[in-house]
């Protein structure tokens, strides 16, 4: 997702020229793509720089360019993304295509985009999943603001070696909150930090989001929330948060997690100092990192353990939306580029280079990645219903407050007051 790309560099002129040269060589090898071209198109996003995800986009752009269409990628740091895009929009210099986060985080940008129907992409209409998370509003199913690509969401991982050291079966993963409690207490007793956690912005959010998906499992819940029929005063928000503050009080996250960044928490798990990580499907604290740092086969993915009274639904969203600007200078090229990125070729490149899980069926993940961990993650996602509830319950403003303060609440408590303050921002 967004998480690895923060502060990544812009694609420079040299990269662009190298890409163009590679494209002209590749053109001979891909005659089908070479038959037509759309000139030049541009894309702006936070995930187009030197990160793994950014390199995937660059490779996709290079391959796509063999059809005669040059794609200029411009990376903008995540923290400045909305302000940069709004400035470009006001100046009439919006790129042809752009990256967006589903849910409410980027919905201020939606009015500037071209709306379309699934049928505008007939080859993807019935294969691509998560379309419903790329609509203008949740109750406007045929008004797409972007193509959903990739899968993102909460994914937990165990360190099998540390599990064994704590007297736990290394092949076992906790399926319920009670089982998670049992695992955490055994890890603690063995002198191991049970769960690698940060002060935020993302790791506490991923854990909370995993719990919220179970307590708000239905599409109707999300629709009700967006319509104002469910607010943050709903008991379920407090219930889920109380599980986290309780975990913090029991020391499952170690003593000092509120001073840790997401990267530092990731490093704690990667260096074998914590038994469990609540990371993401892609981007942060995820299988490509564990393959490299822990070794393939030394970790095991699992979904957020089921809360009492919860329903086994995973927190799943598209990795991102890729959208066309409402005043794109090259609309045909933009649509061709977006279709390529969301199609099998584009998604395989993103999986291989960027570790992004595809939202297409029948992708041979083992063949593309050679990773048993990746296959396990893909199978878990495919075998479990998912929703994106946590991205819809807070506005962008409240989301920032949530990201900033959730970790602190998990340590110090005050969940009820926190949710009231959050509701005031919504």
């Amino acid at each position: 997702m967004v998480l690895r790309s923060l502060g990544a560099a812009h694609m420079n002129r040299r990269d662009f020229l190298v890409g163009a040269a590679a494209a002209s060589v590749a053109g001979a090898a891909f005659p089908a793509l070479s038959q037509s071209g759309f000139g030049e198109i541009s894309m702006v996003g936070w995930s187009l720089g030197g990160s793994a995800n950014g390199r995937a986009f660059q490779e996709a752009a290079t391959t796509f360019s063999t059809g005669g269409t040059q794609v200029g990628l411009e990376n903008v740091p995540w923290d400045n993304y909305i302000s940069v895009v709004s400035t470009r929009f006001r100046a009439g210099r919006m790129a042809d295509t752009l990256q967006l986060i589903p849910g409410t985080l980027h919905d201020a940008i939606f009015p500037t985009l071209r709306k379309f129907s699934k049928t505008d992409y007939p080859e993807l209409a019935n294969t691509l999943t998560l379309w419903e998370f790329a609509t203008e509003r949740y109750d406007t199913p045929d008004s797409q603001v972007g193509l959903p690509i990739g899968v993102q969401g909460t994914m937990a991982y165990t360190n099998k070696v540390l599990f064994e050291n704590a007297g736990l079966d290394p092949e076992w993963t906790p399926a319920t909150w009670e089982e998670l409690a049992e695992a955490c207490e055994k890890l603690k007793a063995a002198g191991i930090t049970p769960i690698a956690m940060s002060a935020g912005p993302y790791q506490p959010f991923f854990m909370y989001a995993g719990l919220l998906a179970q307590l708000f499992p239905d599409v109707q819940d999300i629709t009700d929330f967006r319509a104002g029929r469910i607010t943050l005063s709903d008991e379920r928000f407090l219930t889920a948060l109380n599980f986290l503050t309780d975990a913090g009080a029991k020391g499952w996250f170690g003593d000092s997690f509120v001073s840790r960044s997401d990267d530092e928490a990731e490093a704690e798990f990667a260096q074998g100092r914590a038994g469990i990580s609540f990371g993401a499907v892609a981007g942060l604290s995820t299988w490509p990192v564990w393959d490299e740092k822990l070794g393939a086969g030394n970790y095991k993915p699992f979904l957020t353990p089921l809360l009492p009274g919860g329903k086994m639904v995973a927190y799943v969203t598209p990795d991102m939306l890729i959208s066309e600007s409402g005043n794109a200078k090259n609309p045909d090229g933009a649509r061709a580029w977006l279709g390529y990125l969301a199609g099998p070729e584009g998604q395989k490149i993103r999986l291989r280079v960027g570790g992004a899980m595809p939202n297409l069926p029948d992708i041979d993940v083992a063949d593309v990645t050679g990773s048993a961990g990746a296959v396990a993650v893909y199978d878990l996602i495919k075998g479990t219903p998912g929703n994106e509830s946590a991205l819809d319950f807070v506005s962008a403003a409240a989301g920032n407050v949530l990201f900033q303060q959730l970790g602190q609440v998990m340590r110090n408590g005050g969940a009820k007051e926190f949710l009231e303050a959050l509701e005031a921002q919504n």
Partner: protein
Amino acid sequence: MVASAGFGQAAASWRARSTQGSGRASMTGWLFVLPQLVLVAALVLLPLGRVIYLSFMQYDGFTDPVFIGLQNYLDLIVWKDFQRQVLNTFLLVLALPLWVLLPFTLAALSHDHPRKAWLRFFFLLPGILPAVVVGMIFRMVLSDRGPANELLRALGLPGVPWLSNDPLVLATVALVIAWGMMGSGVMFYSAGLSALPRERVEAAILDGANWWDLVRHIYWPATIPVTRFWSMILVLATVTTFYPWIVGLTRGGPGIASSTIDHAVFLAGMGSSRLGLAAAMAVVGVLAIIVILGLVTQLSPKERG
């Protein structure tokens, strides 16, 4: 009578010439300052006016601004997070004596040192690094499992929650900023001390003054204008430009324990697309500067008659 009439005529003629000349001079003066006035209007007054205008609007940067009166300000008044961010800003200003005295002391120590050029270069080094980088370095050094705490533990002492304890984190921020800003302060004070007449110091030494006497009775009074200027710069920086330190060191955390007004403006404006609210926060920041500067001016040392 004739003489009197002649004098009156002469006086009237002089007045007319004088008024005419004054008008020309006045016009010439205005023409000289016109470019600067245009620049000030374009670069200061217009943006400031725009910020004040937006503070009364609901504005996301994409759709047209909608006038909402004082609503942004009313929201800020009741928003506990913003109250805390304002409080944090004022608390940080309490570190002003440290930020002033540290560079003054270093400048005084190095003033007559034979290798003062090298010393000043050494003191300036922290200022060469970008604030966000210094913040990130100290974040690593001071984290709970960082080198500073590991050293303390190796010595049998407990670790210190430099960055994870509220309110200790604000003191940590103040100390790191003191280190980072030290070089600029040393330069200002060294320049002030260099302007000090050499005879005055020599006369004091002949009268038996030691180093402490020199500092108290000569160096400090002589650099009071520098102190006032440097204090003003620091106050402005606290409200408007400490954001990179906060981002690099704590990202405003834990929670919002170290978040300041400029950090709040960034979060609202850049992260949440609430430009109207961010503008209102910025206006509050300007008011905070006026209040703090007023207090600092009252409390800062006065120049001797």
